[in-house]
């Protein structure tokens, strides 16, 4: 059996070889992320059968928990690791042609560090290790947002940096509190000892940790960095940020809240927070005239929806939330990737400049349409099973408050539909402002978008195998006892 540590070690090692390769030839560096994420993806697929039977626990350095750092590769962790490597692979294929000018070498190095950090967050079983990988993820993304180098990019990057640092400080203080309370940093150990302390004293560490992680996960009052960062970053980075980084933040929140703390009083509050994030995200997206800003607010909305689904803490709704999470990675990635080249060809990020793109860039526009329809939740695309599972999981609980919240979810779907349909109509049915000769996107980008489209359609028509796996992943998240048992054997 292959060692899952390679999932983190290989991208990390290859990241540091990028400057070496870069000093020899700049052009070759763009293949390194492709190799690294392809390796990760194949490794995840190889690990899949083993993890299905029993979660793999690796003790780093040979020190047994609760003294050493351990990796916990369960269903949920493997799902996320696979998703991260898949998205990383597709976006790195896209970047083969998209990233040409500027500090290309540093871009690829930071990109791989971002993927390393993300994979580390989802696989670790130690809370301070989580913080370390989380910081790697965040700092790489701060730098990558500023990649383009224009004024907007640098401004949003610094705003993101400041807010992210505040968040990380809160996170660190919260972890410090936990360490002070329990004397251990191992997540399973803390989970075991949680009930020994009086519940009131747990609120401050929980709040600080959730707020700290929430800055990256883009929940409502903490997500002000997101619209600026996602719209000023290059489109491949926007795709990775929307598709991976904020979802990894949400995973971290879910892991802490459900597995480590497991205090069910806060779940309803998180559900409300999720709905608030959803509504504000969708309503703000409706008012935008800049396409990337609109997609960024839409990401905020979707994260709110996934947080709502996870916070309901039933197997069905968590499965729906995870399905919607996969759908968001694929669809939002597709939307940002296609918007990237459309913006590049038309020269402006305004939605009105996308009019008439259906003729000039047919495959790219089709990709945008598929991504938009999937995100709204129309059959036969991947968004429909996700939304259906979330709504049915929520309504199955049968409480009046939850039913009202579900009504708000359906209302936000209508609003989401409105602004996406307007853009899709503009692509195909409105006349372009200026007459530019038709020019398709380059082959690498088209390949990336085509893979995403196929995945979305296949997932939409055959959700059953994935949903079955997600069901076990959901119990991985919710079932605290078996988590503790697996780690602290």
């Amino acid at each position, binding site marked *: 059996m292959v060692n899952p540590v390679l999932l983190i070690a290989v991208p990390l090692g290859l990241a540091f070889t990028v400057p070496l390769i870069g000093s020899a030839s700049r052009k070759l560096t763009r293949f390194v992320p492709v190799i690294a994420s392809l390796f990760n993806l194949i490794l995840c697929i190889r690990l899949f059968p083993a993890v299905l039977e029993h979660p793999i626990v690796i003790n780093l350095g040979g020190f047994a928990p609760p003294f050493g750092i351990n990796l916990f590769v369960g269903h949920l962790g493997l799902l996320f690791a696979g998703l991260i490597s898949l998205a990383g692979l597709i976006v790195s294929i896209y970047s083969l042609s998209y990233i040409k000018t500027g500090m290309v070498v540093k871009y690829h190095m930071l990109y791989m560090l971002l993927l390393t950090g993300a994979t580390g967050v989802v696989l670790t079983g130690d809370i301070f290790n989580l913080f370390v990988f989380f910081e790697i993820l965040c700092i790489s993304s701060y730098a990558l947002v500023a990649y383009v180098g224009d004024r907007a990019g640098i401004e949003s990057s610094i*705003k993101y940096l400041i807010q992210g640092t505040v968040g990380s400080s809160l996170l660190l203080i919260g972890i410090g509190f936990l360490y002070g309370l329990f004397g251990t940093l191992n997540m399973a150990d803390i989970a075991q000892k949680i009930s020994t302390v009086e519940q009131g004293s747990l609120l401050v560490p929980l709040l600080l940790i959730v707020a700290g992680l929430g800055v990256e996960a883009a929940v409502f009052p903490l997500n002000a960095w997101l619209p600026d960062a996602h719209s000023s970053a290059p489109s491949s980075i926007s795709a990775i940020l929307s598709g991976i980084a904020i979802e990894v933040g949400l995973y971290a929140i879910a892991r802490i809240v459900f597995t480590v703390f497991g205090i069910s009083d806060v779940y309803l*509050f998180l559900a409300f927070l999720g709905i608030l994030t959803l509504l504000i995200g969708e309503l703000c997206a409706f008012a935008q005239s800049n396409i990337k800003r609109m997609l960024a607010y839409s990401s905020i909305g979707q994260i709110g929806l996934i947080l709502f689904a996870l916070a309901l803490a039933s197997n069905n709704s968590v499965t729906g939330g995870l399905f919607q999470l996969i759908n968001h990675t694929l669809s939002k990635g597709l939307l940002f990737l296609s918007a990237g080249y459309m913006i590049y060809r038309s020269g402006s990020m305004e939605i009105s400049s996308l009019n008439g793109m259906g003729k000039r860039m047919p495959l790219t526009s089709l990709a945008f349409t598929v991504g938009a*329809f999937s995100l709204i939740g129309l059959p036969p695309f991947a968004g429909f*099973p996700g939304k259906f599972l979330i709504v049915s999981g929520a309504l199955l609980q049968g409480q009046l408050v939850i039913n009202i919240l579900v009504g708000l979810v*359906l209302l936000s779907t209508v609003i989401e*539909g*409105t602004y996406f349909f307007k853009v899709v*109509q503009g692509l195909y049915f409105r006349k372009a402002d200026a007459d530019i000769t038709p020019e398709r996107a380059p082959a690498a980008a088209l390949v990336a978008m085509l893979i995403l489209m196929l995945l979305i359609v296949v997932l939409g028509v055959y959700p059953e195998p994935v949903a079955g796996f997600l069901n076990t992943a959901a119990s991985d998240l919710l079932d605290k006892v078996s988590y503790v048992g697996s780690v602290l054997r």
Partner: protein
Amino acid sequence: MTGIEILLLTAFGGVLFTCFTGRISSSLRNIAAVILSIVLVVLVALLYDKNGETVFYRGFFGIPMVLRINTLSWFFAIAISTLGCLSVIFSLGYMRDRKNTSFYYSMLLLVNSAMLGVVFSGDMFSFFIFWEIMSWSTFLLISYNRGPAVGAGLKYIIMSIIGSMAMLAGIISLYTVYGTLNIADLSHLVLSSSTPGHQIFLLIIFGFAFGIKNAVVPLHTWLPDVYTEAPSPFSAVIAGMLTRMGVYGFLLIIYVILGAARSLHTGTIPGFNHILAWLGAITIVIPTFIAMLQNDAKRLLAWSGIGQGGYMILGIAFGTNLGVAGGIFHTLNHAIYIVLLFMSVAAVQYRTGGVRDLNSLGGLIKKMPVAFFGALIGICGLIGVPLTNGFVSKWMIFKTLITGGAPFLAFAALIGSWGTILAAYKLLHNMFLGQLPERFSNTRQSPFSMKLPMIVLSFTILLFGILPGLPLKVINNIVVSFGFGSLDVSLWGIVSETGMLNTINLFAVILAGLAVVWLFFRIGARAVPVNQSDNYAAGAAVPGDRYNYTVKFYDPLTRTISPYLRDIIDSLYQKIAVFTGCVCNGIRKIYTGYIGNYIMYIVLFVSLIIIVQMVWSPW
């Protein structure tokens, strides 16, 4: 019952096939589209009188997705496939000089396939999936004409999504309460074990969704823009069958799932039906008069269509076997003659270079005789002239309202006829009668591909009018399957408590009358053929191009009524949309752009929760 699976596979596969052949050659694609539509009609016809269910897919979370055929599905399916086929044939001529026709044909076939999927679904889950596919493909095809069609399409899809989300809530509510989404199982379970509260909830929420689709007042505001701006052969399909998917939905929820006819639901369903009948009555009265005020041919047909939809809802909601049968029959009849009328308007549009403004057309009767004949028969059907199918279905609805003791509803239905007569005659006169304007003197006849569907549909109108037993036997089976008593139908008539409708007698009488007229004609002086522009003007010269009465056609009536007939509901919805836009614009200002504010939000979030915990300790 793999017949249905073959049918749907052919339908959806045909869409892809058409798309690909379009890349090779457009004439090849046209032939492929026509052959595919004809094959679908044949396949549906082969399924006549079969009953059964088949599970076609288990891949969705273990919910078995079922296809089902019974008389109700077959009835709607044959109408969908036949009218779709005729529209495709009509499009051959109409879309000849347009661009992107591959997209048009594929979407047209996709809409048809999705509609077939909707009526053949045996469980609410596949119903919802096909319903959604139908909605977004319609949206894409409406926007095909660009310009104002883009706004119309957006209005349509937003209202459709609102309805779909309501339907989704209703479907999942059914799933959580009964554990199954299979329509046949639900019809047993809901009957035996439902609470009145849940019944009302289901009726309202599904009624909302299907009311939007069927354009029941006050949910009708998307319809006029959509019918006017969509490409005309597709307007025909929308008007004919797509809107009537709402009627199918109403039948499904009221009579199949909730079983209104099979048991005595005291209070809930009769109460809902009562309100629905009144909504139907309002839908008849107001839109048919608004139709009369319109100057755009397609918009006139659109408002007429809303009005006729009211008849269907009124018949179905009234709840007697004659009423439901009348409502279902009216759905079929309306589909036939509204498609015919849209085709006639489209033919005129095609040959005059896109003119559909009634104020500027006129006198085309000699130039386009087949279009005139089609419009004439269509209008007779719309009004309900005896010997047309519209007469029979309206007779059934009037009969049941009168004998059922609902004088006001019957009066509303009657007023609707007045409005329809006025609007329909305006359409016919302004397009075909009167003086021929100079610039249309070179108009040619419609091409054969346009004439054929119009002739077929005119023939069908007369056939179903003289021999109504042909469709009525099928409808009787549907009504019996709902649990009503059987109607006494024969090939040429239908019996009711207060008398019988015998169309063969009517036919014989009218033929006899026509024979007498012809006899007088032969005996009398020989007729002299005169030029169309040779009119009597008391000796003065007849001015060319100025003797055509079209503008302000019903001026006195228009001046009296039009202040009361503005579409207030549409302006209400527009105001709501603008208000939402303002709210969104206000909310986005939370993100002020100033980094200090953002840090403040983070700190406030943390401190607020700590304060809340310290003061109230909810956790």
